């Protein structure tokens, strides 16, 4: 048998595929039996006569949702395959009769007998195992959290159900907080936006929602993540072995996939909590063909403000909301289309009614309106060229913007300071990503494609209505990143490999004015020697580099394995923020003449062990990372509306190393996850002018360096209706800078400080508890459950910072805790 596909070169996907093969000329020859004959305009897929391919998708029987990472194992052989991000699988085997064992946690395992005498397309549906769901509270990728079989180092996978089972602040399931329970992940402190992975800054995490990058993943200044767990199917955190298809950020990838919505029946779910209410609706528009999902959340803050007798409270509005949506359309057996979107915003409208002054006049009324928003749209097209070749093409738009406006009666504020103004800032991404997977045989998979991103940064546009104040528009910066990549995944008997290569090219594009500085002095606006103007489309500066990725694993036996990984990552954009926690109005800046791309190298080594029945899974993983061209800030850096931002920045390097221990128990009444991380993260500024280096150019701990982090997550099934959730964390206090002296000028006292981060805040720890009550009524459509508990059970006042004052020349020190008490919560969740 020799299936043939004729190419029409006006057919876009084939032309694209041909183009990719031209980029990787060696790929064509490396794929046995695969040739591109441009003259004949033909792609010829050959298989040897004894080998045939089984392919298809694995879905949930009831909802039609694809199951990502479901396993298909050839019974009696060491062969198998997992479904990809779209539920597709493909396995090629010699002609024979096989029994396939298809499994996914929480679903009834199916065995399918297949007489493989020709290529076959078999779509498989699995049914939910209600008994198993009742018995297992922490649900995992397979039937355990075993790390033995996976090739990549440092990968964690979580599902929405896991996220919802954890005790949460105010009872709201939060993805960022769940990510923080993983080994090697830390944060600068409670309430801070983002997270730090293995010593990386928060801007080094590529956070993808249906492949669209998210630039600010927090609501309420950092307290809550923007991701609605009801709309999420699965998330994967890559912190060690990052495949070559990912790039653009240097330390981790958090790949979040939204649910598709049932194509079988109309359903809904939601919840009413202390902080949010949420509702998700899904169903078929055309059964088995076209489905939709819409999901929304809104906070309650402002709804109760009008009840207040305080006029100032009454007039304020503070709220945030999310809206997720997805359309999934099965066009035919070989084509699927997905359109998904996210829109979320934080809104603060603060109104100030002017008071009467002593002279009888009245202060002016003023209104501050501050909003920040994320918007993403992803259009994806899955196309199956052949049972062995799968393609996804994504077109993505992502935008983060904020606006701040002040309005008053006549342009002068109530304290006579700033008048009315409107401040806007945004970052936009336009992304095109064709991605191909070639399933050569049951042991070999080749994935290749191209990432292309057009960035547009609008750092600030300020319009002022006040006389004497100029309107300001900082230069819009554009950048184009092109990155072809290839991954080669191969399994031998005990040895597996995922080798990848990514080549990224970034150009900072005009129009732009670039300052030149006197090389004999530190950069400041006083040392600008000339300014060069670049025209529209001119490349002001380009950078490029190869990003090799390698993951090797060796299974000592079925329950023991060792792994080795190496990554090099380039990051061409930087978050500019010198506050402890990032702010919604921090800006991003692309690499250019004065700002080099961040380069991170990571070497990791791991060992995984499962107990005999896989009841317990253990892993230990060490890593060493180096960071080149990190952005640091001069002492007292002024980032406010600064046209010459480079004058406030310092080049820096750093390193990070650590060892992570993990233990999982995923079956039985008691399930849980324990991890402990020992790590160190350092920074060192490398300005050629010693006088401006931080801590005299010596290494100092990063702001989020926490050598010891211990996390314990546990669920205990009390009975059929009740279960108990617990989370405990213990962490070394983060580094801080303390006063080391004092002096007086003109009678006023001032402090002097130690080198940066020479001291540490007190260690932190916290216990959260939740009780969940669910009464499953099999004959009723409406299923309700209650969740209640206490966040910070023993009211620990963990120090976010310690700082000192000299009020009236009296030296005093204070400890500031973001959360200084117990926080009870209650939530009602429902499904219908």
């Amino acid at each position, binding site marked *: 048998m020799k299936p043939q596909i004729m190419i029409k070169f006006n057919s876009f996907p084939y032309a694209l595929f041909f183009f990719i093969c031209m980029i990787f000329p060696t790929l064509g020859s490396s794929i046995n039996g695969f040739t591109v004959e441009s003259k004949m305009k033909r792609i010829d897929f050959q298989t040897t006569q004894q080998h045939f391919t089984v392919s298809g998708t694995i879905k949930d029987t009831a909802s039609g949702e694809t199951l990502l990472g479901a396993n298909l194992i050839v019974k009696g052989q060491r062969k198998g395959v997992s479904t990809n991000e779209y539920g597709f699988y493909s396995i090629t085997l010699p002609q024979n009769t096989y029994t396939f064992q298809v499994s996914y946690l929480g679903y009834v395992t199916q065995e399918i007998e297949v007489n493989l005498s020709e290529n076959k397309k078999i779509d498989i549906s699995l049914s939910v195992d209600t008994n198993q769901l009742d018995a297992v509270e922490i649900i995992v990728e397979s039937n355990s959290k075993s790390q033995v079989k996976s090739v990549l180092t440092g990968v964690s996978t979580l599902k929405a159900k896991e996220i919802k089972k954890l005790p949460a602040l*105010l009872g709201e399931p939060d993805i960022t907080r769940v990510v923080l329970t993983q080994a090697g992940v830390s944060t600068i*402190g409670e309430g801070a936006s983002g997270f730090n992975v293995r010593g990386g800054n928060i801007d080094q995490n590529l956070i993808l929602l249906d492949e669209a990058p998210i630039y600010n993943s927090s609501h309420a*200044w950092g*307290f809550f993540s923007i991701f609605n767990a009801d709309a999420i199917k699965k998330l994967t955190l890559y912190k060690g072995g990052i495949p070559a298809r990912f790039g653009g950020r240097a330390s981790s990838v958090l790949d979040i996939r939204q649910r598709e919505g049932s194509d079988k029946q109309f359903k809904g779910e939601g919840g009413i909590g*202390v902080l949010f209410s949420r509702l998700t609706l899904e169903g078929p528009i055309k059964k088995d063909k076209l489905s939709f999902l819409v999901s929304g959340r809104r906070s309650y*803050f402002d709804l*109760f*403000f009008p*009840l*207040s007798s305080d006029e100032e409270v009454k007039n304020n509005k503070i709220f945030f909301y999310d809206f997720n949506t997805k359309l999934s359309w099965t066009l035919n057996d070989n084509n699927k289309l997905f359109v998904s979107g996210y829109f979320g915003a934080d809104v603060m409208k603060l109104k100030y009614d002017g008071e009467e002054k002593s002279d009888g006049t009245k202060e002016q009324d003023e209104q501050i309106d501050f909003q920040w928003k994320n918007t993403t749209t992803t259009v994806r097209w899955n196309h199956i060229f052949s049972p062995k070749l799968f393609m996804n093409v994504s077109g993505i738009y992502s935008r983060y913007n904020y606006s701040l406006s002040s309005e008053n009666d006549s342009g002068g504020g109530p*304290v*006579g*300071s700033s008048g009315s103004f409107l401040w806007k800032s945004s970052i936009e991404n336009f992304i095109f990503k064709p991605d191909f997977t070639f399933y050569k045989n049951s042991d070999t998979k080749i994935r290749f494609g191209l990432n292309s991103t057009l960035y547009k940064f609008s750092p600030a546009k*300020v319009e*002022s209505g006040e006389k*004497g*104040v*100029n309107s300001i528009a900082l230069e819009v910066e554009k950048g184009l990143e092109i990155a072809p990549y290839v991954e080669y995944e191969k399994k031998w008997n005990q040895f597996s490999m995922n080798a990848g290569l990514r080549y990224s090219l970034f150009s900072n594009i005009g129009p732009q004015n670039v300052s030149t500085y006197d090389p004999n002095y530190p950069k400041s606006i*006083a040392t600008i020697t000339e300014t060069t103007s670049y025209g529209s489309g001119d490349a002001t500066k380009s950078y490029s580099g190869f990003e090799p990725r390698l993951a090797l694993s060796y299974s000592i036996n079925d329950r023991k394995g060792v792994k080795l990984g190496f990554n090099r990552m380039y990051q061409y954009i930087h978050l500019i923020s010198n*506050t*402890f*926690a990032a702010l919604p109005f921090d800006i991003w800046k692309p690499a250019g003449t004065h700002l080099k791309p961040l380069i991170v190298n990571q070497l990791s080594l791991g060992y995984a062990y499962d107990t005999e029945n896989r009841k317990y899974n253990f892993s230990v993983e060490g890593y060493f990372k180096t960071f080149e061209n990190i952005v640091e800030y001069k*002492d007292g850096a*002024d980032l*406010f509306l600064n046209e010459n931002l480079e004058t406030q920045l310092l080049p820096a390097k750093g390193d990070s190393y650590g060892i992570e221990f993990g233990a999982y128990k995923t079956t039985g009444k008691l399930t849980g996850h324990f991890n402990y991380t020992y790590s160190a993260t350092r920074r060192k500024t490398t300005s050629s*002018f010693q*006088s401006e280096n931080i801590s005299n150019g010596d290494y100092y701990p990063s702001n989020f360096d926490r050598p010891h982090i211990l996390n314990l997550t546990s669920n205990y099934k009390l009975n059929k209706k009740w279960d108990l959730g617990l989370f405990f964390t213990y962490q070394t206090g983060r580094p801080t*800078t303390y*006063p*080391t*002296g*004092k*002096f007086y*000028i003109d009678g*006023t006292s*001032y*402090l*002097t*400080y*130690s080198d940066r*981060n020479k001291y540490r805040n007190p260690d932190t720890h916290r216990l959260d508890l939740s009780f969940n009550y669910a009464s499953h009524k099999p004959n009723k459509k409406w299923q309700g459950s209650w969740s209640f508990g206490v966040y910070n059970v023993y009211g620990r*006042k963990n120090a*976010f*910072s310690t*700082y*000192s*004052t*000299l*009020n009236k*020349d009296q*030296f005093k*020190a*204070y*400890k*500031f*805790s*973001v*959360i*200084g008490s117990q*926080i009870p919560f209650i939530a009602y969740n429902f499904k219908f």
Partner: protein
Amino acid sequence: MNHLKNICIALCCSLVFFTCTEETTLKTDYEPQIIIYGNLRSGTHGFGIFVAQTVPVDAYKNNPVNDAEISLFTKSPDGDTSVVLDDFTIEEGYYESKEQITPVLGNYYWIEVTLKDGSVYKSTEEKLNPIVPIESHSFIDYTLKLGISDPESESNFYLSEVAFYDEFGTIFDTFSVTSDALFNGNEDSFIEIIDVFDYDGSYSIELSSVSYNTFKFYQKLLIQLDVNSADDDAGSGGLFATPPVNLKGNIVNTSNNKTAIGNFGVLAVSKYYE
């Protein structure tokens, strides 16, 4: 109904009440450092420099350095360099020139301070800018608004000071620093000093055109004053605070290239008295 209302409001605002600040103790080591601070002002004046060593945080007076050698240098736009001053009277770390000088517009000035241990501290060369006159001023709701005509040709930085007097002397003074980022070249530009004294008596206003280095120094100094004056709120140690920084300006120890605490500023001063 009122109960429910209050509970709802309390729940919604609860995040605010979860934060907590409490007094604590710090175990820190005293690390002595040298401070050098002074400004050269336009017009005819004496010139003063303060030199001292820092003291522990629980001490209540300076540790003056009275045995330093200080020189003030100048350089004309043509590159001619000369010593302007090197003879000072010394009292408690304050070095006051024995004669008055009149700095020259467009000239560069710098200081060199040699300590007894041989270490030499040198400031960067600071230019005397043209004076930007105060064209108008008004007090509105505890804010002093100074009208100026900001020169368009280059970035300008301002140090503005106001002091109120009674018959016994100064009763309140304050200052601010401003860059012209928001009003560069605007003929109707204005500078504000907020939280000024509400007082009908005598006052003086000074608006100084300063260098970028001096602007940055006073900016850091103002941030620290704000932090230091905090009582027990979390404004200085909260989520969005920046790391505390030393008040280092433009004076460098030439032997190890470390920047000293303090600053040498050259101020082109416009004055108003009432």
